[in-house]
């Protein structure tokens, strides 16, 4: 019994300043899945995420969340941007920032009942943020702030959590911790995770599905289905090799070959 | 009948003085102002004009040289802003605001003490809206000399200033102490707005510092061209404004015309608005494409 997808993207085409960034992108995410949005820097991962969130208008294509078209107030999508600069002078504790994730759209002063306060505690605990919960949100380290942003996005119980390059500036140990944390969240809270990264190796142990973006197009499926020489060569438009070593994957361009790859119209493997 | 150039314009001595002062002020303001705008220090630049004016009103009250008051006040203000402010943009603006507030409060006090202790009337208006037509011709040489000094100072720190204005990392990589360069620039700006405030009043001082540079930065990309374009806009608007103010004396004889600051600022504001029109933008791009791109950025 396959659950109906919680996020569907079909035939998406997005242009910025006249240039087509993404063309005919199609994939879907099922509840609780961990999906990696993989591609090199500048390929359009952020654009894709922003389009899903409704911050960018696509030229063509359909995006559905829970079967319904996306709308600005859609609370089914949680968003964690890349590191944001928060002024350390701002008088707000990390825990208050997480609470704001619950009701920032409401009017009036924040009056939170004990149930809501307990929810904040739960979220803080889920991201291992208890020890710095009472510190100023602007004075947190990069990793701490990221956990708080995740808690903030998570507290409104989204169906999908979208994260933009959360692993980019972290040391290897922190990368492992955050990936494990996010995996735990998918299991404990049933939230699907779509996270963009330019390197897939840290995600291999937990990724259910991969959306591989290159040259404006995308291939989606499981890692076995997508991370293969034939699929990726097709995507890039020239020969690439996929090397596997000690459980790690390396995608290498094969510059010696000059053959043209015949274009297949459909790159969605599953 | 009214003509565009009312009689006596070119023969009038105050007009000559105004044209010279206006041009010099416009050019110095353009040079300093382009950097102020690209460093997002328009607030600091404006605050310094008010702080300089406070220095001026203090000097007025204490009976010492107004020029010293204007420039001294500005320099002290620049120092205070640097001392209180930090690198983060928001805290910097708060610090600027606090310094400006303190200076404004002091200005209130000086003006009050001055008007109650002497019989001077119109002191507030004079200090705040000082007129380019009432400037003492004997101050011209000093104003020009100090302006040249300021320009030389900016020219000396031109390259490190440019680099640290665009990228903190690049500045650090090249061993430039951005903090010191920033302070030097602030002091140069303080001196230049002190000069322009006493020459043309605090309103015009801010207007010439920010307006033409903000306009030119929208039109051209290279700093050197921006300075030239800003100078041209500054001088042209200043001269036209002086002309219209002179004319308005005849057009509205009942109240002796409108102040020159009004005309110049209105023209500057108009230029900025026009530069935002997409038609203008497209024409500029066409011009640039037709005549090929000029030499490298700096």
């Amino acid at each position, binding site marked *: 019994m396959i659950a109906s997808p919680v996020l569907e993207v079909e035939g998406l085409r997005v242009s910025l300043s006249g240039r087509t960034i993404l063309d005919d992108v199609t994939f879907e995410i099922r509840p609780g899945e961990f999906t990696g949005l993989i591609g090199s820097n500048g390929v359009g991962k952020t654009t894709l995420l922003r389009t899903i969130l409704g911050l960018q208008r696509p030229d063509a294509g359909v995006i559905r969340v829970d079967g319904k078209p996306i709308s600005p107030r859609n609370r089914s999508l949680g968003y964690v941007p890349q590191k944001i600069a928060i002024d350390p002078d701002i008088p707000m504790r990390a825990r208050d920032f997480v609470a704001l994730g619950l009701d920032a759209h409401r009017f009036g002063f924040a009056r939170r009942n004990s149930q809501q306060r307990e929810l904040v505690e739960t979220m803080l605990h889920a991201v291992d943020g208890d020890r710095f919960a009472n510190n100023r949100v602007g004075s947190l*380290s990069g990793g701490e702030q990221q956990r708080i942003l995740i808690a903030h996005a998570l507290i409104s119980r989204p169906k999908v959590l979208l994260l933009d390059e959360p692993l980019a500036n972290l040391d290897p140990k922190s990368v492992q911790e955050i990936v494990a944390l996010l995996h735990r969240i998918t299991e404990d809270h049933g939230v699907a995770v779509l996270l963009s990264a330019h390197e897939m190796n840290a995600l291999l142990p937990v990724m259910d599905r991969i959306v591989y973006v290159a040259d404006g197009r995308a291939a989606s499926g499981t890692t076995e289905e997508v991370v293969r020489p034939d699929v990726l060569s097709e995507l890039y438009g020239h020969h690439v090799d996929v090397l596997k070593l000690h459980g790690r994957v390396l995608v290498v361009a094969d510059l010696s070959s000059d053959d043209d790859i015949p274009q297949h119209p459909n790159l969605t493997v599953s | 009948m009214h003509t565009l150039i009312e009689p006596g314009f070119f023969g009038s001595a105050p007009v000559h003085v105004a044209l010279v002062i206006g041009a010099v002020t416009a050019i110095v303001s353009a040079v300093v102002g382009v950097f102020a705008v690209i460093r997002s220090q328009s607030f600091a630049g404006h605050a310094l004009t008010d702080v300089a004016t406070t220095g001026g009103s203090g000097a007025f009250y204490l009976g010492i040289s107004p020029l010293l008051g204007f420039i001294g006040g500005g320099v002290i203000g620049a120092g205070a802003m640097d001392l209180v402010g930090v690198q983060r943009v928001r805290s910097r603006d708060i610090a600027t605001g*606090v310094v400006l*507030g303190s200076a*404004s409060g*002091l200005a209130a006090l000086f003006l*009050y003490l001055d008007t109650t202790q002497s019989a001077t009337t119109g002191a507030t208006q004079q200090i705040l809206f000082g007129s380019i037509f009432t400037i003492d011709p004997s101050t011209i040489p000093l104003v020009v000399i100090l302006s040249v000094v300021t320009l030389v100072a900016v020219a000396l720190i031109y390259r490190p200033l440019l680099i640290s204005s665009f990228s903190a990392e690049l500045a650090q990589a090249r061993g430039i102490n951005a903090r010191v360069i920033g302070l030097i620039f602030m002091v140069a700006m303080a001196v230049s707005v002190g000069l322009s405030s006493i020459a043309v009043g605090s309103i015009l001082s801010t207007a010439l510092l920010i307006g033409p540079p*903000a306009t030119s930065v929208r039109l051209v990309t290279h700093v050197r061209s921006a300075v030239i374009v800003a100078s041209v806009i500054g001088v042209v608007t200043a001269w036209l404004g002086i002309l219209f103010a002179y004319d308005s004396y005849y057009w509205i004889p009942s109240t002796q015309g409108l102040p020159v600051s009004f005309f110049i600022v209105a023209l500057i504001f108009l230029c900025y608005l026009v530069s935002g029109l997409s038609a203008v933008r497209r024409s500029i791009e066409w011009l640039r494409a037709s005549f090929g791109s000029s030499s490298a950025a700096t």
Partner: protein
Amino acid sequence: MATRLVWVQLGGDLMFSGFMVNAWQAGTIVAVVAGIVGFFVVLRGSAFPAHAIPNGAFAGAAGANLIGINPLIGLGVFSLGAALGIGGLSRRGRPDAVTALALVMMLALGAAFLSQSTQYEPEIFSLLFGEILGVSTSQILPVGVLGIVSVACVTVLYRRLLLTSIAPEMAAARGLRPQSIDTAFLIVVAMATTMTVPVVGALLIFTLMIGPPAAARCFTNRTERALALSVAFALVTVWLAIACSYKTNWPVGFFVSAFSTTFFLAGRLFRALRARRSVYPISSVTALARSQG
């Protein structure tokens, strides 16, 4: 007996009677509004617009005077115009340059209006620097009403203002439209300006919106407490300023700016002392290590 003597020394008997009652009432309302609106001015780093809008308002008052209508209308129209102009132009250009241009345009208009009228010097002075001792009873009502409206707007938008000020990207992702909030806030500043300028003066209202709130956040991490402290500091500032102005006859605006600055410096001092004295918590140590790693 001794306290009674001190009280008289402080001008206690006269200071709280007669026309001074208006001053205390108006001043209190102004302080509360400035403390609340100022909290967000500082949060959003909108110090420059908070300075520019009142100055623009001054031009409006001069213009209204010229055509013979209630200066409050001129104040309101020009504040609103300045707020919308700054908000609108900021979207397409550099916000600080745009604010400077709007400011000088307003001031130049003010100068033009003044040149065409026979406005007396003291009136100009009081519009710029405040004449709290001349507040008439009839002014209290409009001041109060505008004050209530400004505070009500801030209360309603409280949480949205917080999120859009601190993390605009996340606010945008939730559909909270940061741009609309920006415009709405500038309008609130315009309203707060209109009601406070006749009392504290165009040039100095913004010190009240900067100093006390900037100081308040040095003393606490908690948002609501910082807001309350901001109002408290603003109240103390205005009350002390009124008392000192009554005693010395010096302009009240001078004392407002002096005490606002004092609070600001006290806040900075407190923060510096606490940073030096406190034991660094774990997160700061890791932050330090990571930044140097």
